[in-house]
């Protein structure tokens, strides 16, 4: 059967809703459907920004400590809904050969297994380090010098006279109001999640820290609510 023989097959301007995919019937998704999907996608885009702002408001203005996964969970849930809409209507998987959906689903299963096994590994690090630590060699930074790249960048700016302590105190967003006087993360001191940071990136000796304070650099505020 030639598609040419059936001129109406291509102009079916209404999407099928159930099964019976037929390679000779090319579904033309209606402009109304496509535009509705675009509007929903835009609404969800503003929703994900709004949700992030709301989380910040709850954490820093109200002072309620949201757990760290809320940020990721909300952002990814909205992104998954948007991606499904794009795949179903813009990419027409809803009306398409089911085999194409299968290709996509297998691919996403591969992605899930990558992420899953990575998370398993990361989650077990604390039980591995005690007997593996003697074999672990810290990697280099790729540049000459002693210390983290961020610290060297600061030292270089201080030497060059381009370092502005005022800027250092005001350069960062997300400083919770009322918390910017306490000690927090700095280029000399990191607060890793579970003690995973290598010694080179961890706490610096107090003497080195004092040396930087002489240059009049105010203590940076905590960068987050953790």
């Amino acid at each position: 059967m030639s598609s040419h023989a059936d001129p109406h097959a291509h102009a079916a301007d209404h999407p099928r809703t159930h099964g019976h995919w037929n390679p000779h019937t090319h579904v033309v998704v209606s402009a109304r459907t496509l535009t509705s999907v675009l509007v929903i996608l835009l609404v969800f885009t503003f929703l994900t920004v709004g949700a992030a702002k709301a989380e910040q408001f709850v954490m820093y203005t109200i002072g309620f400590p949201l757990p760290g996964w809320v940020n990721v969970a909300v952002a990814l849930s909205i992104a998954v809904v948007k991606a499904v809409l794009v795949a179903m209507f813009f990419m027409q998987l809803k009306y398409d050969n089911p085999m194409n959906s299968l290709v996509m689903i297998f691919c996403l299963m591969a992605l899930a297994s990558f992420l899953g096994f990575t998370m398993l590994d990361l989650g077990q690090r604390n039980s591995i380090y005690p007997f593996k630590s003697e074999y672990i060699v810290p990697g280099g930074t790729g540049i000459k010098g002693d210390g983290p790249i961020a610290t060297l960048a600061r030292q270089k700016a201080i030497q060059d006279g381009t370092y502005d302590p005022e800027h250092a105190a005001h350069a960062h967003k997300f400083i919770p109001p009322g918390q910017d006087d306490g000690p927090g993360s700095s280029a000399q001191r990191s607060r890793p999640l579970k003690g995973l940071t290598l010694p080179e990136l961890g706490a610096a000796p107090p003497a080195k820290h004092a040396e930087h304070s002489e240059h009049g650099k105010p203590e940076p505020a905590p960068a987050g609510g953790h």
Partner: protein
Amino acid sequence: MSTLHADHAPSGGTYADRYVAAAHFRDRDHEFESVKMGVWLFLSTEILLFAGMFVGYAILRMLHPEAFIAGSGKLSTFWGLLNTVVLLISSWTVAMAVRSAQLGKQGALQFHLIVTNLCATAFVVIKLVFEYYPKWQEGKLPGKWFSYPYAVDPSEPLWWGIYFGSTAIHATHVIIGMGLLTWLLIRARKGHFGPHHYTAVEGVGLYWHIVDMVWIFLFPLLYLIH
């Protein structure tokens, strides 16, 4: 039922009307569906390419949550949001371009292809001029090129590696897409696409949607951390 060379080549009409499938396909629909599945298989490799970056993102964010919060705070949500809106609109126009080709509306097809390409250009311009260039100037660069002196976390160079790595590969896909859209426009102006033959429009459209879909995930994961 299907026979080899079921298509007849009409003498009149446009290129799309006269189009005959390659000899190893039963008919044009067989060719169309085969090409489409080939595109889907290619798209699955694209997803796996970005999957590697998402896994890298997950590892580094779990290891250095504060660096990601500090780094994300230095991105402009405004430009990220604008780029998301631009890309979503371009996804809609490319879906409309496929629809126009299916219905044989040559003017609408060319119009939607042009608007899609303009959106792609806007995306790249915003990315380079308002995001990459200022960060480059301030030394917010990946790894050993990092020279920004006001880092609040020693692992910020890692964050900039993830940011520039993922967005640059995504932007490369957008630029490749611009080339493909230009190719489609040239062919559309020659009357190559119509209800009986729009395989290339469909394939590039699918590619463009997957680029959009990757950005749907990159935007919240990069810009909305707090």
